[in-house]
């Protein structure tokens, strides 16, 4: 199986690469359109700003190629943190920016959703499983994952797999067809995170 980690200059790729290698797969790090051929699964990691991320994806001409692979060829995609957020319609970080629109929903600041706790939302927080899904195979309800975010996704309950409480309920993982997204960082979430990555690779 060929796995592509998409590099759009948004954060480090070593951790995710290392976990995949530990699970005995050889991922490729892809930065250009021409390299994005013949892969079976795609991982879109990411830390940083929504608008900058979209700009970089556009600059490297990765958007159309991803759309073809994920939407038309129905290949699996896992978006992590910012990589999950940009899968949605629109982000409000430094002005409204259009997202990839693979999923329906908006990305909003936690404060605008009524969160009154200290921000950013940093640290280990538990998930509340809302739906049985292969993403969470061998992961118990209330398991802790590592979060680091100010923004969250606001979307329909239909695609929500798990939520997390931080003053307000926040969407911590979503799935629709071949597209999975997690707000937390599985690559930094010790054994639970590794299990989730394994679930993705084996689904």
């Amino acid at each position, binding site marked *: 199986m060929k796995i592509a980690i998409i590099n759009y200059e948004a*954060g*480090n790729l*070593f*951790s995710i690469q*290392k*976990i995949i290698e530990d699970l005995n797969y050889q991922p490729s790090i892809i930065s250009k359109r021409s390299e994005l051929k013949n892969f079976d699964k795609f991982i879109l990691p990411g*830390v*940083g*700003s929504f608008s*900058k991320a979209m700009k970089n994806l556009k600059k490297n001409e990765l958007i159309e190629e991803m759309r073809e692979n994920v939407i038309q060829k129905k290949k699996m995609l896992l978006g992590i943190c*910012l990589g999950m957020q940009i899968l949605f319609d629109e982000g409000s970080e*430094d002005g409204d920016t259009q997202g990839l629109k693979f999923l329906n929903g908006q990305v909003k600041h936690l404060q605008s959703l009524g969160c009154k*706790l*200290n*921000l*950013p*939302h*940093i*640290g*280990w*927080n*538990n998930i509340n499983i809302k739906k049985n899904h292969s993403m969470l195979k*061998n*992961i*118990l309800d209330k*398991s*802790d994952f*590592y*979060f*680091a*975010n*100010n923004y969250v996704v606001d979307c329909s309950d239909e695609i929500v797999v798990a939520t997390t*409480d*931080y003053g307000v309920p926040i969407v911590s993982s979503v799935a629709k067809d071949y597209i999975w997204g997690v707000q937390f*960082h599985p*690559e*930094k*979430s*010790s*054994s*639970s*995170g*590794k*299990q989730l990555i394994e679930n993705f690779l084996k689904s």
Partner: protein
Amino acid sequence: MIKKRIIPTLLWSDNNLVKGVNFKDRRQVADMLTSIKIFNIRDVDEIIILDIDSTNLNKTPDLNSIIDFSKNISVPFTYGGGIKSFQDALDVLKSGADKVSLNSELYNDISILNKISKHTGSQSIVASVDFKKIDEKFRCVSNSGQKIHEINPIDFCKLCQDHGCGELLINAIDREGTMSGYDLEMIEKIRSNVSLPIIASGGAGSYQDMFDAFTKDISAVSASSIFSFTELTPTGAKKFLKKKKIDVRDGYRY
């Protein structure tokens, strides 16, 4: 529910883990990478690695070592030491650190926080605020405790928050390595003036000290001496805190 974090801080000097008292009398404890691997196997919540030589020796961060560390850590880690520019910070994050910790450079140019935050988001930036009492007044210090600044730690923490920092690592130098407890009074004052998550550092001597700090509504405690020189461990701390109704993270269960 967000969990309260217990964070080992590793002071890094010349590839070794060292430990000092009041930022002096540094003493070698162990090999750095070995220590990191041990804490990782113990599944700690997070690790803070501070290169204590780089600023004073005018060195940039050792990126190859940071890459090595990142390949051996499966939980988040913060790196600090010698970050003097936006590019240094970006390089450190690209090398696998989840957060950069800034200290001395903040006193030269606090806008470095805005620059990094704009690019990576505030959650990747920790302001490390070292302070001590000088002539009965609290003052911020930098350059591994060598430079004293006019500003007090409360005002400085507010300033860091205003400039886009994501988390505060507040370190009482007078307590460092003394195992005499965190500076609860200062923690409380800073807490009531800023809304950022706070990591308290300097002085942990017992699990009770950690509990006391958590009563001040902070997000995490950090310790180094007790985890290097005593039988106390992050896991032991969690067991103690859990009994006292502090929400801490359990390891992976299935």
